[in-house]
């Protein structure tokens, strides 16, 4: 177990992921490949190793995922477009300063067409709705500078209908509060500048109670800890300016203990197999906790903070001060 972040190992781990094309699992998970690229790229940026993945190659890969029939991006060439993969594509292109490559008009139309009468968004033409998709829509429109075309009222009113008595938000109206859905909802509200919809003291309390005695965070009451909540919970707390309400050193220790000290990468909890999803969210959490030597993460967009600031999209979130190495 290591008590420092093994940056070189993680960079190597992320770089190697692209070399696994002989593995069955690489192809079996193609339906979320573009999300994997986004997680890897974001983790690299936060660890100040953006150069570890070839920018041009990455951009070309993203463009190869374009689904011309739908006018948006799929997770892998020949896969159907979906709002999840579309946001990842936009995030990757934005990170590489290559948003000019995409047909913004068509993407914006794709996104806007997914909004339902209730204000929620579907993920694709088949109509599954989820506040995750609503966030994807809001974030994508914001990154593309097209928020003014969104029906804000309806969007916010759907978010408000998902709020529960415990301050949290669920997947759809009526659903139980879940830390991942709390993040998509508060982040969407932050982008829409409507945090007044949030009951901050109650939600801050609910989020603080996600920390378990071992330092890790769970996603719902009476559930197990998991490194991915380092992002869902912490980013929500950063947006509400409540990061001081948990024990940051205990959480830092927990995230570090979930690293794979030989192969690199971070797992859901100590001793488990590392994957790119938990690697990204573990690193994201450490950045918000002020871990030394990392770049700032913007908790609203889950992208490098400097980039979001440059794009003029920074909102009023607050991370813990960066500690000296």
């Amino acid at each position: 177990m290591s008590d420092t972040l093994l940056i070189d190992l993680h960079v190597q781990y992320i770089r190697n992921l692209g070399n696994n094309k002989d593995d069955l699992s690489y192809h079996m998970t193609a339906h979320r490949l573009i999300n994997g690229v986004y997680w890897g790229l974001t983790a690299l940026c936060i660890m100040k190793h953006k150069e570890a993945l070839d920018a041009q190659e990455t951009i070309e890969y993203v463009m190869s995922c374009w689904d011309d029939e739908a006018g948006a991006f799929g997770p892998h060439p020949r896969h159907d477009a979906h709002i999840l993969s579309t946001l990842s594509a936009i995030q990757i292109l934005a990170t590489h300063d290559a948003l000019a490559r995409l047909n913004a008009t068509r993407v914006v139309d794709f996104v806007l067409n997914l909004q339902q009468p209730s204000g929620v968004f579907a993920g694709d033409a088949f109509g599954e709705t989820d506040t995750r998709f609503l966030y994807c829509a809001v974030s994508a429109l914001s990154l593309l500078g097209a928020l003014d075309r969104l029906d804000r009222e309806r969007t916010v009113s759907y978010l408000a209908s998902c709020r529960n008595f415990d301050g949290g938000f669920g997947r759809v109206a009526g659903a139980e509060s879940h830390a991942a859905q709390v993040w998509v909802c508060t982040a969407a509200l932050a982008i829409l500048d409507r945090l007044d919809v949030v009951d901050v003291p109650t939600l801050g309390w609910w989020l603080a109670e996600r920390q378990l005695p071992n330092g890790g965070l769970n996603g719902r009451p009476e559930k197990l800890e998991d490194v991915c909540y380092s992002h869902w919970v912490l980013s929500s707390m950063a947006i509400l300016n409540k990061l001081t309400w948990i024990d940051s050193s205990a959480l830092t220790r927990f995230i570090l203990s979930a690293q794979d000290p030989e192969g690199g990468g971070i797992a859901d909890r100590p001793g488990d197999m590392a994957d790119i999803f938990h690697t990204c969210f573990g690193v994201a959490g450490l950045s918000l906790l002020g871990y030394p030597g990392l770049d700032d993460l913007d908790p609203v967009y889950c992208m490098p903070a400097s980039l979001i600031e440059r794009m003029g999209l920074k909102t009023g979130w607050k991370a813990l001060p960066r500690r000296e190495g």
Partner: protein
Amino acid sequence: MHGVRRARETREVRTARRERERAMLSTYLALTDDILSRKKNKDWSRDAFDLTTQLLSTHPSVTNPEFYTVWNYRRHILTNGIFPRSSPEEIKELLNDDLAMTAKVLKVHPKVYWIWNHRRWCLEHIPDSPDYANNQAWRRSAWERELFIVEKMLDADSRNFLAWDYRRYVLASMPVRRSEKAEIAYTTKKIEANFSNFSAWHQRTKVLSSLWASGEVDRTLSLHKEFELVQNAMFTLPEDQSAWLYHRWLIGSGDNKAILEREINLIQTLLDEQPDSKWCMESLVTYKRLLLDNHLPTGSQEKTTAINQCRTLLGQLEEIDPMRRQRYWEMGAQLKV
């Protein structure tokens, strides 16, 4: 990779695994390539449909129910190719087959959104019965079976939030709606089986709100019963968050002074019995603050006493729950006489 234990793979082991997987990989790539090519060519044939069945569910070695593009394609084949030349009975049969198939796949992949989604699509595409009079029963059976499936899924994992969300969807969409009181009974059953199941308590908040709003259940009477139920959980296991959260929902904005005082006294009894209970202290502070804000006159002796009690409790909380110390400190600083 949730919950998969780490295993170190040596170079030899990896080479051996790739060797083993080579045949599977080429089968998988050939199958997916075939399907995606047919999809591009708008092949709506039964053959194409059967290939999607293989990939999503029945192939002996390379099924992948997470490949949502193939679910999408399957639905396109049904609506564009197969339904137009099928009778309503045949369509119903096809959809029933898909429901049976997804039920099997769900057992192995209970948290794959795409599978739940496909069931939903199937249910929503059950055609009207050709026999108009029979229409109700024809649809009803499908939806009731759906409720049974979702109960099975919740028996296997009573916290599966996809299953709970789907349950709410089914309850709201059934052609013949079930009484909400039956849903209260269901949550009681789940809570009695394990009262740490917050998902069941949450469901209760939603169903009861609706029953109160419709006037079907008297709020005052049922509130009394709900307090009794949740008190059992609080006293049995005061460290269990689920019960305290539900209790907080019952208290709500604390506009009923009598209830507020009664519950404060009861929690104080529990705290006396279990002096290290964080949730007792935390709830006492919250409820005393509601009392302060809503019911105690400014400047009164009662108010000063309550504030001092809150301060003491917050001080104790800083000691016994240091992880959240800062929050307690801030709450204490906000208390004004």
